[in-house]
């Protein structure tokens, strides 16, 4: 009896250790892969055209979903904020509350999660399919470095696109928060805007953008890595896509905590 449970503990520890090791191993591999890709940014041939193409695809593909998410987030924050603040009789702070929540926290995080769902998953799937169908090898045979052509532009594109998308998210979120707070709930418009401007500091804006850049970067790194190292089968690509979405989302949330504690 005793020996059985002892065995079980050993096995459990063993598999935990293995899990930790493979995770570390994969993180190391992902880091090497993306750093070696990024290093090619400064090498000829210059991939500018491909970066712009990827940026365009990301921007166009994600704008609508970001706008919708931003609008509803602003609206619900105004409702919830009003409900809470009204208990203290400080409805006039609503504008500042909505703006700080969106700019510092919800814009970058929800924007990142939307980008993962909308674009990150398709980055992984696309690269995985290029692997399965030997297009990556074909590029290699035609003397085109797949890291420079396929991975690099996508990592750069998500890193640039997310801060832009998050800024749009913020603007739309603030505007729709204003509509709900002022037009619907009757908060004084002057107070709403005034409190908002006096409480939101430049460093709040910076904090939001730094987060967005960081999130965009790890989304690019994780999603390209998962696709590039996908097992070259149909199931392999499907599994890689799921893993990419989970890993990127968890990565964003963890990084968010770290950056928030850093900025407060």
């Amino acid at each position: 009896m005793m020996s059985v449970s002892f065995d079980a503990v050993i096995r459990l520890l063993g598999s935990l250790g293995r899990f930790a090791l493979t995770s570390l191993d994969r993180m190391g591999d992902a880091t090497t892969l993306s750093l070696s890709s990024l290093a090619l940014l400064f090498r000829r041939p210059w991939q500018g055209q491909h970066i712009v193409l990827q940026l365009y695809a990301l921007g166009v593909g994600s704008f609508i979903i970001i706008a919708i998410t931003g609008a509803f987030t602003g609206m619900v924050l105004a409702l919830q904020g009003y409900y809470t603040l009204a208990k203290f009789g400080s409805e006039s702070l609503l504008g500042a509350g909505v703006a700080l929540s969106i700019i510092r926290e919800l814009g970058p995080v929800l924007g990142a999660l939307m980008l993962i769902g909308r674009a990150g998953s398709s980055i992984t799937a696309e690269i995985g399919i290029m692997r399965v169908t030997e297009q990556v090898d074909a590029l290699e045979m035609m003397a085109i470095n797949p890291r420079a052509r396929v991975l690099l532009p996508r990592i750069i594109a998500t890193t640039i696109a997310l801060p832009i998308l998050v800024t749009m998210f913020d603007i739309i979120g603030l505007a729709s928060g204003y509509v709900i707070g002022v037009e619907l709930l009757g908060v004084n418009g002057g107070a709403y805007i005034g409190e908002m401007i006096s409480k939101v500091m430049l460093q709040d804006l910076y904090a939001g953008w730094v987060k967005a850049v960081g999130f965009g970067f790890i989304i690019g790194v994780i999603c390209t890595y998962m696709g590039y190292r996908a097992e070259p089968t149909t199931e392999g690509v499907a599994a890689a896509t799921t893993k990419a979405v989970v890993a990127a989302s968890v990565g964003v949330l963890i990084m968010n905590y770290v950056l928030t504690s850093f900025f407060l």
Partner: protein
Amino acid sequence: MIRVEKLSRTFGEVAALNAVDLQVRKHQTTVIMGGSGSGKTTLLRMLAALDKPSSGHVWFDGHDLASIRRKELYELRARMGMVFQYSALLNSLNVYDNVAFTLHEHTQLDESIIRTMVTMKLEQVGLRGFESFMPSELSGGMAKRVAFARALAMDPEIVFFDEPTSGLDPISAGVIATLIKDLTQKTHMTSVVVTHDVHAGLQIADYIILLWQGDIIAEGTPDEIRQHADERVQQFLEGRPDGPIPFSRSKTAYIDDLLHKPGVVRIL
């Protein structure tokens, strides 16, 4: 042109190639034949430096492909072409841009010149007029012919073919086989063809290498191979299921598996 020394490749426990030695001579068509899983694709990928050997060397015109630097490798690749088993056309580009890809990427040629070259390559594979088709709109056989045209775009010195005739109708297969033979003879191209199609292999080969489970069991001219004494060679040429090459690769006794008995050699 290519010399292979004691080349081995293992995937985990599986030994795909066991220390093979071989040569690919200039201006010849070398055909690598063998059954499924005999290591043909693995060998071809290492000849083209798409994969690194576990041990051994591949010498390409004096360069060791295992230790070559990327920049040098890419210069060599300008002299190589490859037709993949499943075509590997770039999905996002149409037929014209696929065939013109290397010309666009690596030359400063005028678009009108490129257009002429692409037209000529597509005519060679009988697909002129399909320039604006996307890869997804092509049948497997058509895609393969486009891949062929793409591999020839830069007039390479050596072209690697992985199963060039499989998945083609008999007429297209014949045309492709003839084309490989003609190009090798008339333009002094060097071809390395991987196939399990005995008929096409014997037809186009100057030299044949027969692989079986990662070992070379026979090599020589088509006539030498036809008259080879080894029972395994004859079995392969005739496609008989019985003989020294077992059709089944299973390692447990059939009856044991049916009766769900643990096999004696289930592991290893």
